[in-house]
């Protein structure tokens, strides 16, 4: 099986979808003349023309709304928000419209749209290095996906484009270059299904997106020390599939939730709550969460490194859980 990057996997899925369905088209900032900000759709204008790959003015709310209108009128827009941070300007369109139009109007209209939201960090500072996964995961009517492997990236992008509902597709720029085995042919990975990536008996580590490859590294190191960690990759944040998490937790009775977000009130908080409510009988130790320190992201590299999670943060949290220590989360 070919080994390709996460970014190439996304590109293949988008390309396949463009070929398979002429209703699919891409809008965003710098997708035509610049050939896409991060290069995910590089070469598409040449292949599909500037009718189906369209540059937008800097007007996130406007073109998010435009995409919603086009979706209601039968097209399948893929809206590239240059970054998650800029999508804040379109939040009303996503939350009040994409998510609710089907419900509010009694099922008359569907909004089959994909919002691609690259997020991540890398010396881009406070307003350009954030995760708002929980904002979207909070909203009924949205489907929110955040794959962590190239295989899932390809299959979930295709599934997102084919889905009749609005899908928020969170792409962590920090894993665009991560490589993995990806079939050449087109396929889908279902939205709303978590995945047991690695079985283990000592602790269940729950993660998604960028944290998935990081947790895989951590698990390997833990194995060297004789600690057998299971990994459940959520892949979808809404609708959330807790089954593989609970199933693993029944065996391990311990959990660490590793997400790249401010820990308080994040996606991880929901997972912890579900573990307490759905898995109460199996809890043997406090559940720990790993995330950003709760400060706006600093610019200087050493400061940035100090506040983001690393494989060592996951390893440390696992050891704390195994030692039965309680966690105190600080908001400074």
């Amino acid at each position, binding site marked *: 099986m070919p080994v390709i990057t996460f970014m190439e996997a996304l590109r293949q899925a988008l390309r396949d979808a463009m070929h398979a369905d002429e209703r699919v088209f891409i809008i965003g900032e710098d997708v035509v003349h610049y050939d896409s900000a991060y290069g995910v759709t590089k070469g598409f204008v040449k292949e599909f023309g500037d009718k189906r790959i369209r540059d*937008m003015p800097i007007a996130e*709310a*406007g073109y998010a*709304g*435009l995409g919603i209108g086009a979706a*209601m009128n*039968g097209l399948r827009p893929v809206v590239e928000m240059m970054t998650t941070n800029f999508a804040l300007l379109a939040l009303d369109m996503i939350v*009040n419209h994409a998510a609710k139009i089907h419900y*509010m109007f009694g099922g008359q209209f569907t909004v089959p749209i994909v919002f691609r939201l690259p997020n991540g960090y890398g010396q881009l500072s406070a307003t350009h290095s954030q995760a708002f996964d929980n904002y979207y995961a909070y909203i009924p009517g949205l*489907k929110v996906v955040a794959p962590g492997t190239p295989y899932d990236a390809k299959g979930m992008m295709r599934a997102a484009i084919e889905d009749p509902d609005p899908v928020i597709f969170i792409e962590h720029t920090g894993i665009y270059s991560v490589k993995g085995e990806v079939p050449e042919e087109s396929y889908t990975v279902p939205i709303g299904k978590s995945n047991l990536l690695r079985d283990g008996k000592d602790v269940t580590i729950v993660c998604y997106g960028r944290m998935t490859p990081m947790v895989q590294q951590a698990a390997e190191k833990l194995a060297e020390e004789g600690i057998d960690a299971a990994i459940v990759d959520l892949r979808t944040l809404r609708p959330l599939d807790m089954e593989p998490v609970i199933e693993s937790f029944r065996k391990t009775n311990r959990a660490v939730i590793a997400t790249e977000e401010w820990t308080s009130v994040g996606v991880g908080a929901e997972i912890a709550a579900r573990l307490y409510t759905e898995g109460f009988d199996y809890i043997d130790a406090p559940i720990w969460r790993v995330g950003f320190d709760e400060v706006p992201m600093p610019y200087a590299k050493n400061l940035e490194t100090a506040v983001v999670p690393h494989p060592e943060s996951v390893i440390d949290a696992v050891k704390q859980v195994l030692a039965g220590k309680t966690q105190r989360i600080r908001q400074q």
Partner: protein
Amino acid sequence: MKQERDQTHLLEMYRLMRLARSLDERMWQLNRQGKAPFVISCQGHEAAQVGAALALRAGHDWVVPYYRDLGVVLTMGMTPREVMLALMAKAEDPNSGGRQMPAHYSHRKLNIVSHSSPTGTQVPHAVGIGLAAQMRGDDIVVWTAYGEGTSSQGDVHEAMNLAGVMKLPVIFFCENNGYAISVPQRKQMGVENVADRAAGYGFPGVVVDGTNVLEVHEATMAAVERARRGDGPTLIEAKCVRLTAHSSDDNDRTYRTAEDLKAMKAQDPVVKFETYLTSEGILDDATKTKILNEIKEAVNDATKYAEAAPLPDPATVKRYVFAE
């Protein structure tokens, strides 16, 4: 023959304006009786709405209205029964089946798509509907409306800019009644006419008397032709009057003088058109009585029908979160 056709057309305009007014008045009565939680009015906008909507092809062109556009949706084919079902949030309401507030009109078969309550958000949707039509080569026009208060929203600016860039078949229709709930126009904008802004988007802006149905109709016809030719959008600003409070939750006496309301009432578009038709010999007493009786019957029927209709079944409350 042409004269006869014109007369029929003019009487249909009158009937629709009267119907909108009567239905609107009934909704306020029901609100005051505690039978309708929320009403937002078209009164004073009937000429603008009917004049504009009659320039469109019902069920073919797309209409993306705002909450005052009762006259528009009736003209496009929504029935008084359907309007009343929405007002009372009944199961059978085609707009939403009791899931959305009244006056957020939406009707798939009539190509009516509405907004949620943050105003102006429907305008980018209209542009997207227009883009889809342009990409497929569909021969449609998209008509969208909003008040002058909403014209201050960034979404409206972004949408008009997008439509200008792509020369989309969209008609932006601003119903300017001088008030954004309580804020008068002079405190909303530094220009006299909302239509003046069209120049900034590269398409024409036209100001019309929104209390003159014929003037609005003519301007909208011209905008429709322009859009169908592929020449792109037009912004039409119809200067209207607001004859009621903003909504049933508002008391406009706290911010509006009696003189102001009196001056607006003197411009009542329904009365104006009725006077015109009478003086032209198009509307005689017998015809007027017949029209008014039919409307009264339709409004009574709609009220009775909606009152008797069942509420939505709570067992269905989780339907439509995701597509089925």
